[in-house]
C-alpha cells in the first residue's frame, strides 16, 4: 500500500529521537542545507543508524514545505508545499497573524513537516494519526536530548550555519517534552517498521527538487527561538511519566545543548520555594544574581535562563506591592477610586468583595466540573473506540468463518449518526459498570443524564443491555458510513 511507506517514515522519524540531536541543527539552516543534506544522506545511508537516514529525510521535505513561493515542485510529497502556500495565502487576511505564523512555521517546520507525509497515515489503523500528530512534538523534543549531538558526522557540512543551528536546537529543546509520554510505545512501534523505509527514502530523495529558499527564512528561524513553545520538564525519555508528577524536573540535556534559546520551564511552588530560599541566602532579590541562585538551588536541568527570567518576575512582583503598600492611593485606577469611596461609606467594599468571591468560586467550581466531564467523556470515547475495534476484529474473524452472525443492517446511514446511538448505548451501559471511581456525584449524574438525553434525542433503542449494544456496534462497523478508513 502506498500509504504504508510514507507513514512508516513518519514513525521511524520518532525512533531516532534519542540518537539524533543534530536534526535541530539541520532544520535551522534551511537555505544552505539542500545540497549538503543530499550529500550527507548518501553518507548516512552507510551508517548503522538507519533511522537517522529517515530523520534526515525529513529535512528535504521540510525545505520544500517551508517555501511559500514554491509552487510546481516535483514529487508528490512536495505538492504539499503548495497546500501550505495556499494556507499562507488565505490567511493573509490577517496580516499580523501571517507574520507571526511564518516564524513558527519555519522554526517548527522540522518538527511539523513530518506531518506532511502523514496523509496516508489515516488510512492505516487508527493509532497512526496519533503517532504522527504526536510525532511532531515528540521528535523535536527528543532530538535535543542526544548527548552525542556534537559527534554526529552530519554536522560537518553544516558548519556555516552553526549559529542558526544553535538557535534551532533551542527550538528543538523547547518543544514539548510532555509528548514524551507516548514515546516509549512509539519507539517500539517504530522499530518494527525499519524495513520498508529504506527504499522509500531513495524515492523521496530523488524526487526532491527543492527550490531556492528565500534568505529571509534564515532570519525567521532565528527569531522564534526566544518565543518557542513551552517545554514541560519531565524525566528523561525512559519512562512515560504523567505530566503532573515530574514537573519540577527539567530535562538535563536541555542545558547542555541549549546555548541561546530560552526554553520554557514549568515552575512549581516547591521549586519556587527553593528559589526564594536561595535568593534570601544571597541577600535578597536585588542582590542575588542568577548564577548564584542557580548554584545554590542545585536543581538538575535548571538553566541560568530559567533563573534569570524567574528572578525578573520575582523582582517585579515584589516591587509593585511594596511601593503601593505605603501609600494606598498610589496606583488607583478609577475602579479603585470608587472602592475607596465605599471604604469611607462603610461595608460596601466588603460586601462587593464577598460577592466577587462568590462568583469567582462559582466559576472555578464550574470550570472544574466541566474539565472533569471533558476528561471523562474522552476517556469513555477511548474506551468505546477500543471496544469498537475489538468488535471489529472479532467480526472480521467471524466473517472469515461464517457470515451467519451478522444481522442485516438496517437502512444505510447517510452519516455517522448511526454509530452514535450504538455508542451512547454502550456508554449508558458502561456508565453502570465503570462509574465506581467518580469524583463528584454531580458530574456523574450530569453525564448520565446527558447520555440519556442524547439517547432520547436520537430515538435510539433505549437499552442498557451490553449485548444489544455490541450488536449495534458490529452493525455500524459493517456499514460504510462517513468513515471509510475504518475499513481496511
Amino acid at each position, binding site marked *: 500500500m502506498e*500509504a504504508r511507506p510514507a507513514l512508516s517514515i513518519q514513525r521511524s522519524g520518532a525512533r531516532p529521537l534519542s540518537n539524533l540531536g543534530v536534526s535541530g541543527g539541520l532544520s535551522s539552516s534551511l537555505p544552505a542545507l539542500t545540497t549538503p543534506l543530499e550529500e550527507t544522506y548518501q553518507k548516512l545511508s552507510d551508517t548503522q543508524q538507519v533511522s537517522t537516514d529517515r530523520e534526515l529525510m525529513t529535512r528535504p521535505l521540510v525545505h520544500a514545505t517551508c517555501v511559500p513561493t514554491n509552487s510546481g515542485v516535483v514529487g508528490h510529497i512536495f505538492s*504539499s508545499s503548495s*497546500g501550505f502556500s*495556499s494556507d499562507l495565502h488565505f490567511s493573509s487576511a490577517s496580516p499580523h*497573524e501571517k507574520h507571526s*505564523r511564518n516564524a*513558527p512555521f519555519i522554526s*517548527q517546520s522540522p518538527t511539523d513537516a513530518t*506531518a*506532511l507525509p*502523514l*496523509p*496516508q497515515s*489515516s488510512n492505516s489503523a*487508527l493509532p497512526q*494519526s*496519533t503517532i*504522527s*500528530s504526536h510525532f*511532531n512534538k515528540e521528535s523535536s523534543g527528543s532530538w535535543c536530548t542526544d548527548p552525542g549531538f556534537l559527534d554526529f558526522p552530519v554536522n560537518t557540512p553544516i558548519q556555516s550555519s552553526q549559529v542558526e543551528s544553535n538557535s534551532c536546537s533551542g527550538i528543538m529543546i523547547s518543544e*514539548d517534552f510532555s*509528548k514524551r*509520554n507516548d514515546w516509549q510505545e512509539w519507539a517500539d512501534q517504530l522499530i518494527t517498521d525499519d524495513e520498508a523505509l529504506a527504499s522509500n527514502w531513495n524515492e523521496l530523495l530523488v524526487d526532491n527538487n527543492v527550490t531556492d529558499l528565500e534568505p529571509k527564512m534564515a532570519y525567521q528561524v532565528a527569531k522564534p527561538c526566544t518565543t518557542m*513553545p*513551552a517545554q*514541560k520538564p519531565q524525566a528523561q525519555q525512559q519512562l512515560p511519566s504523567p505530566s*503532573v508528577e515530574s514537573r519540577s524536573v527539567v530535562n538535563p540535556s536541555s542545558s547542555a545543548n541549549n546555548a541561546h534559546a530560552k526554553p*520554557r520551564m*514549568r*515552575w512549581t*511552588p516547591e521549586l519556587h520555594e527553593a528559589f526564594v530560599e536561595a535568593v534570601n541566602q544571597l541577600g535578597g532579590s536585588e542582590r542575588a544574581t542568577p548564577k548564584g541562585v542557580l548554584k545554590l538551588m542545585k536543581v538538575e536541568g535548571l538553566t541560568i535562563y530559567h533563573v534569570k527570567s524567574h528572578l525578573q518576575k520575582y523582582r517585579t*512582583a515584589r516591587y509593585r506591592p511594596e511601593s503601593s*503598600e505605603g501609600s494606598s492611593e498610589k496606583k488607583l485606577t478609577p*475602579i*479603585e477610586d470608587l*472602592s475607596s469611596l465605599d471604604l469611607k461609606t462603610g461595608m*460596601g*467594599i466588603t*460586601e*462587593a468583595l*464577598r*460577592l*466577587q468571591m462568590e*462568583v*469567582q468560586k*462559582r*466559576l*472555578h467550581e*464550574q*470550570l472544574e466540573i466541566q*474539565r472533569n466531564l471533558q476528561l471523562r467523556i*474522552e476517556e469513555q470515547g477511548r474506551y468505546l473506540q477500543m471496544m469498537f475495534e475489538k468488535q471489529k476484529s472479532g467480526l472480521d474473524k467471524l466473517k472469515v468463518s461464517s457470515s451467519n452472525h451478522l444481522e442485516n443492517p438496517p437502512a444505510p446511514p447517510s452519516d455517522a449518526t448511526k454509530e*452514535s446511538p450504538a455508542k451512547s448505548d454502550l*456508554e449508558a451501559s458502561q456508565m453502570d459498570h465503570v462509574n465506581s471511581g467518580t469524583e463528584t456525584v454531580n458530574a456523574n449524574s*450530569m453525564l448520565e443524564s*446527558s447520555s440519556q*438525553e*442524547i439517547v432520547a434525542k436520537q430515538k435510539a433503542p433505549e437499552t442498557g443491555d451490553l449485548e444489544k449494544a455490541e450488536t449495534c456496534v458490529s452493525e455500524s462497523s459493517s456499514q460504510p458510513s462517513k468513515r*471509510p*478508513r475504518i475499513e481496511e
Partner: protein
Amino acid sequence: MKFGKILKQQIEETLPAWRDNFLNYKELKKLVRLISSAPLLSAESMEYGKAEAQFVYLLNNEIDKFNVFFMEQEEDFIIRHKELQQRIKRVIDTWGPDGTKPSETKYKDGMAKIRKDIVDFHGEMVLLENYSNVNYTGLAKILKKYDKRTGGLLRLPYIQKVLQQPFFTTDLLSKLVKECENTIDEVFPVDEEDRLKQRREAITVAGKGIFRNTVAALLTMQEIRRGSSTYGHFSLPPLNLPDSDLIHSFQLSSPIPIL
C-alpha cells in the same frame, strides 16, 4: 449562538488583552471549510493527507501558543501567591503580637488592600482556568467539525494528546485557587449580618474589574453549553447555575484589562 461568535464575544468581554492567545477558531474553521469543499474523494489520496497534515500543523501551533502563555501566567501566579502570603503575614504582624495597637488604621488599610488584591488574584487565576477551558472547548469543537466535514478520524487520538498538554493540566492552578480561597476564608471571615444589609450597594460596585470579567466568563460558559443541534455523546450537558439570575443582574460595563 455559534461557537465562533461566542468565543469572540467572550474574549472581548473578559480578556481582550489576551485575544491573541486564544484559539484562532475562525482560521481553523476556514481551513476545514476549504478542505471539505475541495474534491477530496478518496480518503487515501495524497491530497487528503496533505490537508490533514496542514490542519494538524495549525492545531499544533495553536497548542504551542496556549502552552507558552499558560505556563508564563502560571509562573507569575506562583510567585504572586507566595508574595501575598508573605504580605498577609507582615500586615498581621503590624497588629502587634505583643498586644499593642500601634497602627490600627494602618493594619486596617493594609488588610483592606490585601483583601482586594487577594480577591482579584483569585479572580485572575480563575480566568486563566477559564482560558484553558475555552480553548480546549474550541479545539474539541473544531476537531469534531473536521471529522464531520471530511470524514476524518482525527478527533479522538488528537484530543487525547491535547488532554495532556500543559495548558490543560490545570491541577496546580486549581490548587493555588483553593489555597487562595482558604486563605481568604481564614483571614477575612464573613460576617453574616452585615452581608444582607450591604448587598444592594455591592451590586453596583461589583460591575467592575476582575469581578466583571469573571461574571462574563460564567455567563459565556452557560451560553456555550446551551443545547445545540449537534448534541452528541461527546458534548457537555447544559449548565445550570443556581445563582443565574443574580449573575445576570450584574451590570456589565467594559472589560478591565489585566495588567
